[in-house]
């Protein structure tokens, strides 16, 4: 199988990567680009531990071929903190509100919440619950994940107001 050279923008950086046509995006991110914050939980797009942000959409990277992502702009949890290391309000919120336990779903949850808050900067609890309903968490019972996203929503909007 001849490899294809693919261009991607990952966490703000333009990169080229050679992949087999059948390589899944999650494997390219994890194994070629060493972005191991992207996790695999089911390989059937049910659990969403593999969620990344791709061209402004939440995408389950376990069921997308890397070649389908050619030319795309991708953000993973590794790209969430500011260059100076300041955590994104979602990262802070998950810790402050105890929104994680084993941490396995967390990167996918954070990436989904990141897009949700752009779609809807001020979601109600119910909107958050529906908004993350494609992501499975086995540890927390979601209650504190909802609070973590509310925390980030509040903080992001307070930041907007200050500008």
């Amino acid at each position, binding site marked *: 199988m001849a490899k294809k050279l693919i261009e991607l923008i990952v966490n703000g950086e333009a990169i080229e990567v050679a992949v087999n046509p059948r390589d899944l995006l999650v494997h390219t991110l994890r194994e070629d680009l060493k972005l191991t914050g992207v996790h695999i939980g089911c390989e059937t797009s049910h659990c969403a531990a593999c969620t990344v942000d791709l061209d402004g959409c939440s995408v389950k990277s376990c069921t997308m071929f890397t070649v389908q992502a050619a030319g795309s702009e991708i953000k993973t949890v590794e790209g969430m903190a500011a260059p100076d290391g300041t955590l994104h309000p979602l990262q802070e919120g998950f*810790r402050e509100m105890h929104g*994680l336990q084993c941490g396995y779903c967390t990167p996918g949850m954070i990436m989904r919440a990141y897009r949700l808050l752009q779609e809807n900067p001020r979601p109600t609890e119910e909107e958050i619950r529906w908004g993350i309903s494609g992501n499975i968490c086995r540890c927390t019972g979601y209650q504190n994940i909802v609070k973590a996203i509310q925390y980030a929503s509040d903080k992001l909007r307070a930041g907007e107001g200050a500008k």
Partner: protein
Amino acid sequence: MAEILDARLGDKLEGDKLEGIGCKRKRVEDIRFTQGRGRYIDDVNLPGMLFGDFARSPYAHARIKKINKASALSVPGVVAVITAEDLVPLNLHYMPTLAGDVQAVLGLDKVLFQNQEVAFIVAKNRYAAADGVEALDVDYEELPPLLDPFKALEPDAPLLREDIKDKADGAHGSREHYNHIFTWTAGDEAATQEAFANADVVVKEYLAHPRVHPCPLETCGSVADMDPVTGQLTLWGTFQAPHVVRTVAALISDIPEHKIRVIAPDIGGGFGNKVGVYPGYVLSIVASIITKKPVKWIEDRMENLSSTAFARDYHITAELAATREGKIIGMRSNVLADHGAFDACADPSKYPAGLYHICTGAYDIPAAFCSVKGVYTNKAPGGVAYRCSFRVTEAVYTIERMIEVLAAKLNVDAGDLRKKNFIQPEQFPYTSAFGWEYDSGNYPTAMAKAMEAVDYDGLRSRQAEMLEDFKSGKSRELMGIGISFFTEIVGAGPSKNCDILGIGMFDSCEIRVHPTGAAIARLGTKSQGQGHETTYAQILATEIGLPADMIKIEEGDTDTAPYGLGTYGSRSTPVAGAACARAGRKIRHKAQMIAAHIFKVHHDDLEWDVDGFAVKGLPEKRIAMKDIAWAAYNNVPEGMEMGLEAVDYYDPPNFTYPYGAYFCAMRIDVDTGVCTVDRFYALDDCGTRINPMIIEGQVHGGLTEAFAVAMGQLISFDETGNILGASLMDFFLPTAVETPKWETDYTEVPSPHHPIGAKGIGECPHVGGVPCFSNAVNDAFRALGGTHTHMPHTPANVWAYARSLGLVEG
């Protein structure tokens, strides 16, 4: 400086600058997990690493006629194909299970469940390995499968285990049939019989606890690296009990234990799934030995759900005997346990049914007897404790359902009936009919607090109104009130009761305090999300007076951590947490001697005050722990060793008995079977509360898993043995939308025998939650002739039940 420190700690303080016991300390682990810097098993990558994948049986019961390796070996990238025949010379085609049975590592001449491991394909990457699996050519001859455990012991039942067919004795006594594993009894049969003979009222019910799966979000996996030069094996893996894995590896191989290093990296949830030893672990090691390269094995989700570690599958017939006033005088239960093709239950050696004999629950029942019979079927092995101490969910389900059945029979309130039968506070320590010594508790107080919080009488009034509306045709909804008052038995355990493969179930902690007053502590347990790095440091902060932030906690590396039996059965806090406190006290004792030497006073003239020692009556003569740490490396009393280190191996004198009172208010749409939880209140008593934030999180998570088990989870099979629940399309994992909102509360009765009074919490909400949901569903139908309907309470099942009671037309 102090002000700055106070400001920085701010709301985290809760009166404790050290962030010790009782503080809602934010989790240390979260710093890496929120940034994608956790290191889970699939993140372990070594130079030259190969990838292994299993070819699995498509049949539940079949003879393997022939395996043609050539078809797989010709696939580009495939390096090796390992079958059982390759394992026979190594005597590794079977491995011992924790339950005293053996399990096939690869099927030799037979396969006994669908998706059983048949061959291990080793390739340069996971894609090539999958191609190899696809290409492997195996000839099978199908055999009739045995799926119904009730038919396992029939005279003409299919013979499953040809390897042990003539074995008259199993690990737990004599076998009555080739598909029989054990029959185990506990309690006083004669006394119980007498109680039943004298009873005014007897109730009997069949309670099925269906097969489910812990299904952590991360599946199981391992990476084995056998160094061909040094003979050193390093094995990374999803191990809840890494030291046990090391010992098992040494026992079944020729590799001496000191040349085996087992490392459990971050674990993405366990819930019992990662206690056992699986063929994948063994094959990754064998493949590394054969190929002289590191080999990784990672399960996919379907493999996880279909081959590693089911839970439950208990078929319980239970009876209660009572006086007409509602005093329970006897309990009897008879269990048929479906163990699948191999007995791979993870229980303490002595107890093939785990701690099922905690089934008298929170009640003072003078006579009790139980009998559990284990049988083989053509299903995956397992029988793990899914977020509970060994078989305790099954036990608590038995008593908490039966007390509701009795309440219905007596036509009394189920809450009142519980109160009438509680073990009273003055009866502790209380010895149950099965001989367990309950350490402490105040059940009436917890129940009263919970009933008041939920406005129990108000709920019953609302339920009666809804029932009237239903009967009069105004509404098609019913209301159910679920109650569960449970007692757990956790912290396995005292070595007089508990061992795994002959090793007592102690746990351990080793602390080193560095000269600058920072420290590292290592423990024999292994967190899978429970937050050990955070909470153990809190215990130590209180015990040794150093800030929790200055104490690093490490687990999971058998080369560095002291020997321990791992994390499951809510044993980390009760056992390793105790070792942690005791090791801390040894540090403090030595520090006191050093402080006495510095002040030139007798050590009894010093008193401990949060983070240092002061001379009694002379508060200006005070030395902080941080400064004592420095002195430990340059100024110790004559004859004392330098340094400030301690180790403690803790063999607990007893189990701990956390308990709780749970209430659920549920609405049921009779025409669709849809159940809606309107309110769920959980009061837990786990003794001393180390980190209330983490406790609350554990309760939320456990309740969510209980909700899943009671309302939807099921691993089922069709008549030929095809597994029907092996993907996340079929197996119910609640999302944020289905999951109810949780209210938590507590009382705090410390354990009298635990050094800091803690009892464990992680599994209580699962154990208490499952019967609570099930009771709510059943309670809704009580006034309409319902006695018991089985889990899972899916809409289809609830609708069918309503129909069977004549409540739905058609």
